[in-house]
């Protein structure tokens, strides 16, 4: 009798323990982003805390923007990515083409101050299929240890006589056309009105023509700081966070010129047919919370998309004397001639302008 009782108790214990373990399974998602310092900031602010909180893991993959690879996966019915960090115009296009899942913004967590998510995110943070995480910008920069009395305006970037040397430009019409028009004298508020006309596009390409022979083209965000560090270019356009990290993290003497910076938002989108869509959604909600967005801003100079994150943005993670606020593209001091990206314009015209840009490159 005693033995029977003991056996029954042992069986119950074993059953209970195995059931508990069986119930606490963990999973993994594949998050795709832009690599380099930017992905590092996401790993520190999003991936690691999410893993610590849920036990789920994140496999990180890099890409260079656009939706071509996503389209290939979806159309082939072989989706291996779960969640992707995209520019807003690509988020709109991807959604229109059925590549991304729809997301209800009201399902996102409220801000730390209790403000509902739809009110907490800055305007323009939501598309039907994506949620903004950061505000970043395309700026141009130079190495002040090489170029003394450096350029101050976007016009200087295009002035190879006064500021000789090669130029680095992203191999894409985005931001380049805007900056070209700004350098040609178009006010930042009028850029897209001009670019919406054939004459305006011609004018932008004409301006690019003036430096075409001097351009070194880059594709990945990690390249521009390297081009500057290697002395391959005198100045280059870049994502502002990459230059900041080269300065703050690697001690480079690069200077950012904020004139005509092109502001943009990056967004998380979940790919339709993603193998771990549910987990990816949980990751998306977690990583776009007030604290996570603010935490990311201590690793890279990109502004959080939530208003409630702003007060938590303090100093650089490895330098308590370096305030991150003034490094952000959204700091008032950096906004005077800023050009906010017109996402609708690019969603409507990206294909056409990409074609023309590629043709222009070949010719």
């Amino acid at each position, binding site marked *: 009798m005693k033995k029977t009782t003991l056996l029954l108790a042992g069986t119950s214990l074993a059953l209970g323990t195995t059931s508990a373990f069986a119930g606490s399974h963990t999973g993994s998602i594949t998050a795709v982003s832009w690599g380099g310092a930017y992905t590092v900031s996401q790993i520190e602010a999003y991936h690691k805390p999410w893993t610590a909180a849920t036990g789920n893991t994140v496999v990180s993959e890099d890409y260079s923007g656009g939706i071509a690879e996503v389209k290939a996966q979806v159309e082939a019915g072989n989706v291996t990515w779960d969640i992707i960090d995209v520019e807003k115009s690509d988020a709109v296009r991807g959604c229109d083409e059925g590549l991304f899942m729809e997301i209800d913004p009201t399902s996102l967590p409220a801000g730390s101050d209790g403000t509902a998510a739809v009110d907490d995110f800055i305007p323009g943070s939501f598309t039907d299929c994506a949620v903004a995480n950061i505000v970043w910008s395309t700026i141009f920069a130079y190495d002040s240890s090489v170029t003394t009395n450096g350029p101050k305006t976007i016009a200087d970037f295009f002035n190879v006589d006064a500021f000789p040397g090669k130029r680095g430009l992203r191999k894409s019409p985005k931001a380049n056309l805007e900056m070209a028009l700004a350098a040609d004298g178009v006010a930042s508020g009028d850029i897209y009105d001009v670019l919406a006309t054939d004459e305006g596009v011609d004018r932008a390409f004409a301006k690019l023509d003036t430096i075409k022979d001097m351009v070194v083209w880059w594709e990945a965000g990690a390249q521009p700081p390297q081009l500057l560090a290697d002395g391959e270019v005198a100045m280059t356009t870049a994502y502002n966070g990459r230059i900041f990290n080269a300065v703050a993290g690697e001690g480079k003497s690069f200077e950012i010129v904020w004139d005509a910076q092109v502001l943009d938002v990056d967004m998380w989108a979940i790919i339709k047919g993603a193998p771990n869509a549910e987990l990816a959604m949980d990751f998306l909600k977690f990583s776009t919370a007030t604290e996570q967005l603010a935490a990311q801003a201590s690793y890279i100079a990109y502004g959080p998309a939530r208003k409630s994150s702003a007060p938590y943005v303090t100093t650089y993670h490895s330098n308590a004397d370096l305030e991150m606020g003034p490094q952000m593209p959204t700091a*008032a001091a950096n*906004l005077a001639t800023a050009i*906010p990206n017109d996402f609708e314009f690019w969603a409507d015209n990206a294909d056409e302008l990409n074609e023309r840009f590629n043709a222009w490159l070949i010719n």
Partner: protein
Amino acid sequence: MWQKTLKLVLVSILVGILLGIFGATAAHYFRAGIHFIEQFVSNRFDNANRFVLFFCSLSTAAFIISLIKAKLSVIRWHGPADTIFAAHRVDNELDIKSGIASTLAAFFSAAGGASVGQYGPLVHFGATLGSWLKAILKLRISTDIVLGGGVAAAISAGFSAPLTGIIFAHEAILRHFSFKALAPIALASGTAIVVNNYLWNSSTFIMGLYSATDVGPMILISIAAGPFFGFVAILFMFTILTFAKLPTQMGLNQFQSFLIAITGLSIIGTFYPEVMGLGTSAIINLTTGSTLFLMAVAILFGKIIATALSLGFGFFGGVFSPALLVGAAAGSIATSVLSWMGIQSFQGPELIICGMAAVAGSVIGAPISMIMIVLELTGSYSLALASTIGIVTATMISGQLFEHSIFDKQLLSRGIDLSQGRMGIRLMEENITKITSSKILKFKPEVIVELAKAKMVKMRVNEAYVNTHDGKYIGKLHLKSLIFAKPSDAIIKYTDTEALNIKSDASLQQAIEAAANFIGETIPIVDRKTGTLIGTINEGDLLKMYLDLQGQTIDLEKR
């Protein structure tokens, strides 16, 4: 540096001596004046009907008090509660006019026969004298010195108890030990007793030296009697505070209030004249004679009701003397109960003295002062020691079940919580408008995004405010919200109307509590009445103001 220190020391000493002289003089003439009037009435109208006599004298007093109130434009009478409150502030001295008017009102109330005390008004008058000296001599000395010195002088001269004066000033009024003020306070107290004794040959009013008592049994009796004295003190305070609310609740005007008080007091005085006026002779009778149980009960309840009627319905004065008499009556009742139980060891004044000190100590929140007063007024160390148990037990009971003192309760009804300490009071007192910045960027709701953004960028601000055309606050505008906004949109579309705002009459405490959960750069301050935007504050300003107050409080209490 040393000259400055020497000057400060000399000034403090001089102020202490001056307060001692003035305090003793005021106390003497206050009591002598009341005594003179009482004697005058008694001699002239010895055979008059007692009701008519009380009715006439109280009516005369009421008339004079009304006159004082009208002529000096006094809104309310000031007493020890105001002194305590003033001692908890750094930059708020006592109002001299109200202090003098209140002392006069107390004088005529007591002289007219109302059941009021003399020490409360004298304490406040002493403190007012200190404030007055500080003001006219433009002294840059601590509030502790001027208030504490005045209070100590009043108690020292009033009771002929200089040590009690020193302790009372610290315990009941300042509520902390003030090292820098100790010498001036002691000087004021010492000077007051010297002046009182040498000029007017005053001595202890209650009793002479008391012979030794059997400490052990007395301590046991004190333990048992202490809670009883505590409950009596609670009944006394509760009745006074309840009566004080009645005229307002009943919608009475000043004349109607006085009429009720005069009639009620005249009836009580007709049957129990012992409970009227300062009650000094009744205390002496209780401590020196053997009062019957029923008489003691009548005095206890009669004094409580008479005092509550007097203070609640228009007359003014202290509660210390009435509390002493109530305590003496309670002690007499306890003595009678002991006698019934067959305990005949304490049929002298021991329990009566203990009861006086315990009830008064509970009412004014000063148990140590009461222990000291027993010692000074009886000269008996053993009686003081034995009374200690009764006093502290009573104050513990009343403090736990009611309030630290009647003054604390009065202040609490005015929204001032002394239990929060100086810092807590200062935080509730300080208004935030003094740190409000009016340098803010404001827009009308129809301004377009492009213009607002350009202006904010030009002025390098991340936050601006949106007001209606008549200046009413609508909400906050974040620069970040405008970055990707349609340039031609009106900014009202992007205005955060739910942003935290604080009303202009908020205290620093309330502002800090609100800011604790605040996220952003600045908090708008909105006029409560008009709804207009007055300015903004930020967390840094709040912290700076808090630290300033903390520094001032430390300066007041420690240095």
